[in-house]
């Protein structure tokens, strides 16, 4: 049995007191314990941002890479060793801004892994510029006259891209988030969890209260997670009422399923010290 103390790191997170990232870390650790996965069989791959520091605050393998690129790193880690449970973690800027290209392509690739986005609708680590999810009109350091664009809608994009598990949760509701992470990990295929994460230092609009006043649970509301159109309709809800929970879930073959190369054992376990290329050379004679 994996216990909380097995995955606790010595160093304490250095996020701002009250930051939503604490809730996400807690839920993630809770989910690992609940799922009972040995920490050495977990790899958490993050980008750069406040969110990117997650792997440092728990005792699993981690790779804190570069801004916007956790998904390709995580994908290949998983393909190289599909006995690992792989998480990708990043911010809204990281995933929906600079990393948008990988985001869309990861969705359609359906590698069995879980992607958690700390969506605080702001650039935290660089001290408060607009993010792709910042609301139109929001004033930030980089948009002092207000954001002109409409925000990206990660849920709608995920539905449009063929993702097979699409959920939203809230850092202020650790129980809901933990359950969502557990479900996402259990799902065979790519799972997206967009997490509303209050940034207490730079986002004074989308606060804990702001979310609490608006969110409601799709599952409590009887939403049919198998219905793509219904999921899309729900993805468009924004304003007074904002849904959290699982929008859409479907079972399709994973990317790994279609690779006979790794059917017998993970790439990393395959011997390489005696590859014979004689026949290959013959092909060129």
């Amino acid at each position, binding site marked *: 049995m994996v216990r909380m103390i097995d995955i606790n790191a010595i160093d304490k997170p250095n996020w701002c007191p009250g930051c939503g990232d604490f809730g996400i870390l807690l839920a993630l650790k809770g989910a690992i314990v609940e799922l009972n996965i040995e920490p050495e069989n977990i790899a958490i791959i993050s980008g750069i941002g406040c969110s990117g520091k997650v792997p440092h605050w728990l005792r699993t393998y981690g790779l804190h890479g570069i801004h916007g690129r956790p998904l*390709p790193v995580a994908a290949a880690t998983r393909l*190289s060793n599909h006995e*690992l449970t792989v998480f990708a973690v990043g911010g809204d800027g990281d995933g929906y801004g600079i990393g948008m*290209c990988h985001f869309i392509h990861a969705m359609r690739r359906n590698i069995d892994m879980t992607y958690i986005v700390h969506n605080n609708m702001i650039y935290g680590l660089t001290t408060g510029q607009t993010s792709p999810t910042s609301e139109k009109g929001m004033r930030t350091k980089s948009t002092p006259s207000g954001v002109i664009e409409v925000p990206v809608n990660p849920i709608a994009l995920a539905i449009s891209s063929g993702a097979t598990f699409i959920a939203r949760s809230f850092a202020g509701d650790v129980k809901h988030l933990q359950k969502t992470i557990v479900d996402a990990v259990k799902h065979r295929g790519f799972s997206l969890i967009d997490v509303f994460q209050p940034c207490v230092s730079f986002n004074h609009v989308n606060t804990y209260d702001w979310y609490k006043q608006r969110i409601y649970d799709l599952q409590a509301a009887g939403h049919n997670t198998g219905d793509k159109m219904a999921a899309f309709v729900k993805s468009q809800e924004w304003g007074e009422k904002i849904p959290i929970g699982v929008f859409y879930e479907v079972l399709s073959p994973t990317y790994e399923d279609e690779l006979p190369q790794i059917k017998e054992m993970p790439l990393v376990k395959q011997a390489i010290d005696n590859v014979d290329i*004689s026949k290959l050379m013959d092909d060129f004679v």
Partner: protein
Amino acid sequence: MEKNKLTWKIGGKAGEGVMATGIIFAQSGSRGGLHVYDINEYPSLIKGGHNTLQVRVEDREIFSQVKGVNVLIALNKETILMHRDELTSGGGIIYDSAEVLDRKEIREDIRLYPVPFNNIIKEIGAETIMKNNVALGASIALIDYDFDIVAGVIRDTFKRKGDRIINDNTMAAKAGYDYLKKNFPDDFNYKLEKIGTGGRMMLTGNDAICMGAIKAGCKFYSAYPMTPASSILHFMAAQERRFNIVVKHTEDEISAINMAIGAGFAGVRAMCGTSGGGFCLMSEGYGLAGMIEVPVVIIMAMRPGPSTGMPTWSEQGDLKFVLNVSQGDFPRPVLIPGDNEECFYMTQEAFNIAEKYQTPVIVLTDKNLAESHKTTEKFDQRRITIDRGVYATASELAASDEKTFFKRYKYTENGVSPRTIPGMKKGIYTATSDEHDEEGNITEDTGNRTKMMEKRMRKLDSLAKELKQPEMVGPRDAAVTIIATGSTKGPIKEAMMMLEKDGVTVNYLQILYLSPFPSEKVASVMDSARKTVVVENNFTGQLADIIREKTGKSVGRRILKYDGRPFYPEEIHREIMEVAHG
């Protein structure tokens, strides 16, 4: 009569199978025990542009193209007009007798062999596209080569397309062969004769790289298509199930390198490949691999820049780019092979260096090397050793504390720290692109920073000690000393033979590692040389710049070419004659 010393060339519109036909010819030479070297030229468009393949065949090992074409197959009139001046005296042109040709437009010492391509095709009931084979067959007759060998190559080439295609192609070639034999007296000056049963491979540099990677145990290849690296992707993809490799055509080059890093981190041997603009996009990930000390091999195949430049042509304009790209100082081994053998052996060496020194390793080539075929002896698999570097031992792991992270970045004398990979109990750590302490925790402490920088950079010193110094080829006390790197090797070797005949002694130092640079050796060579030149396929003479940066010494003359074409030996010969007598 000139026997087994032939340059054969085919030209025509892109999309008409020019390359395929040329390769059948080259392969036929190789199967007859002869040595072959080919070079292709094509623009960056799919159909209609002018394509050529020039094949040199001799009975000794050959290293590059030379000037002077003996047989030209012109699939259209444009080919004649563009290449007539390349023909040697007594050379011949095989072309479609339907083309209206003004004899006066062609030098008198050139022989013309009009062949009714289309009629022949019609007669035998084959498809128009097969007219190349008619021409091919005719050329075989002209040089009096063994048709059976050609038929064999055709058979193997179209194996997967079924007997009908094989038969039609063979018939077309045979018809061309017969037509020429029948209609033209046997008075052609250039002949080819089988001298053995072959057994050598006919490969491009990219083929050799792929074989090297596969032999080295590469399990993951990620790339986004880009000439002239694309054929590595195609090769690896074609072999993915045979050798259990995951090959991924990614959404872009950023993803390609980050995937390779993810695979390297997970513990498999991983490689990615690209060219100029794609390498720009990989540059941030390259630094990441350097910082987190993840082994990854990057194949960088140069083509002429700046920017998109000339996508299907050749240049060595990225030496300094590759050596210096990405922010900060970190160990950046750069290997630069000069021929197929080096492509093969150095690719597997790159994997060993990458894992032994836990760092990204670049293998630098160019279009000329990547895409030219050369007959090559089969690689000696016994020469390959797999060195996976230092993993944490069971006792090191057992000794590791339950609470802290594994000291993945332990300060060590040679800079290399024992490694763990996900799945290993008690080896847990987080790799981070931020500056970090021995355990991988982020820290901005001055003492740690200084030590970590020194630790990482020590790896390059350790590697430098291990690498063998480049060896001088040619007489010790030569009139001219050539220093060069990469694919200029072939034309330089050919030029050296020419110069020897002209009584000019030359020696040649080939730089195999741009980094760590063999500064001492180069400096001592420069000191003892009478006259020094570099031969480089770029505008500024980047290698000469690097030599001066590393040694303080200036090369006497920069022999440069930057028109997108690789050197002909004759060009090097001419310039060195000038230097020698200057």
